[in-house]
């Protein structure tokens, strides 16, 4: 089993193989994504009952919460890639790391925008220094740091290692930042309105929420595959497999 995994891991690491593999999976993933999104949105926007306190406006959580989850998840993906880059110096992990960053930043931005849109009916303003929004904002800066650093270094193999180190440092810091901000918030704001009492959420809301979370994950994979394919073509533009690909 382990042997098989190592073999699979090595094969995945080869750019031409991954290029073909990702290409063959894209159509299927798109189908799965469409089904999940339609089901999730229908469940969330139509089937789920309005909230007894917040009325219809709460429905933005079906975008906001999965986006916020994704923003954390993608950073974890990046840090894991970072470890692979530093330990095994695998080229594909570098590419996955750097291709994940803009997607993660977009999800973080989406979570921020939807969060502040939701804040308007809830708190009467678009922005409050709520703990979660604030940590999300700092997370956005961390993403932008990764993107900025990668862009600033010309030699791309070196840049890959630089962002790997940065992603790991960021990963160690994220929980610290998160809890510091939460603690800061409890100190300065008093009790803010808790957005959602997670344990007591009704299943008619929970099911569409989870569907949307899944659909966002699939979307991430689709978007990642496309970016990775493009980046691989660009990086390996002088290699034989790319030449053969475009000749045929």
């Amino acid at each position: 089993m382990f042997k098989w995994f190592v073999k699979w891991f090595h094969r995945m690491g080869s750019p031409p193989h991954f290029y073909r593999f990702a290409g063959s999976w894209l159509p299927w993933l798109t189908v799965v994504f469409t089904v999940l999104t339609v089901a999730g949105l229908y469940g969330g926007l139509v089937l789920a009952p309005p909230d007894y306190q917040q009325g219809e406006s709460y429905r933005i959580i079906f975008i906001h919460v999965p986006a916020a989850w994704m923003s954390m998840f993608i950073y974890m993906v990046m840090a894991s890639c970072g470890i692979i880059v530093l330990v095994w110096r695998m080229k594909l992990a570098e590419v996955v790391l750097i291709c994940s960053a803009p997607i993660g930043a977009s999800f973080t931005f989406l979570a921020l925008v939807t969060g502040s849109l939701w804040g308007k009916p809830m708190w009467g303003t678009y922005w409050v220094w709520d703990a979660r929004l604030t940590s999300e904002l700092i997370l956005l800066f961390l993403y932008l740091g990764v993107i900025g650093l990668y862009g600033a270094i010309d030699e791309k193999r070196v840049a890959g290692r630089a962002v790997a180190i940065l992603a790991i440092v960021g990963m160690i810091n994220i929980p610290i930042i998160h809890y510091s901000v939460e603690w800061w918030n409890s100190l300065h704001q008093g009790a803010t309105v808790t957005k959602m009492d997670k344990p007591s959420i009704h299943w008619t809301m929970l099911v569409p929420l989870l569907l949307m979370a899944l659909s966002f994950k699939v979307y991430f994979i689709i978007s990642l595959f496309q970016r990775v394919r493009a980046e691989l073509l660009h990086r390996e533009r002088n290699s034989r497999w790319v030449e053969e690909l475009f000749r045929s």
Partner: protein
Amino acid sequence: MKRLSLSQAFWFLLRRDLLLAFRNRSEMANPLLFFVLVITLFPLAIGAEPNLLARIAPGIIWVAALLASMLSLDGIFRSDFDDGTLEQMLLSAHPVPVLVLAKVTAHWLVTGLPLLLVAPLLAMMLGLDEDAYGILLLTILLGTPVLSLIGSIGVALTVGLRKGGIILSLLVLPLYVPVLIFSSSAIDVAASGLPATAQISMMLAFLFLALSLSPVATAAALKMSMS
């Protein structure tokens, strides 16, 4: 002859960096001056009402300390990178994280520690409650080394770049947030007469965490920058 022991190498490099800083002592005052200047700007911008100033003093002092520390960061490795001594340091037989720690310590002694001298003066000018002076000094003592340590990772990542400055602030400032939160809150709490033990313990924890992890990350980043 055997090579120096690890602690001898550490002290040697620390002494060398302090000597170099002393020979360029005109530059030593710059972060300090910046620290004072930024704080002077606040009363001019928001008005000199004593209650208001006293209220925001902890925050202002720490934001200014953050910026002052960040501006001085580039000096940790810049000249060594330019003249090739950094290259030789990476090729030395001693473990690089220990040498990094020596350099960061020297940098902190020169740029972080002097803030202790002017902080009480500025606190007095801003009308901070006198009970909070002790805690203010303690937060600077515990907090600024963390800033130098975290910052060294950022500098190591950007030292090879032509336009590293803005990127550096983007990398480093978000990581400074926990220090900012706990240090200014400690002063805040102390000013209202309550014990700040919780905040101070957290800052001690940050310091030990940064001491143990950041030299390793910095060394890895330096190796990356040199290749």
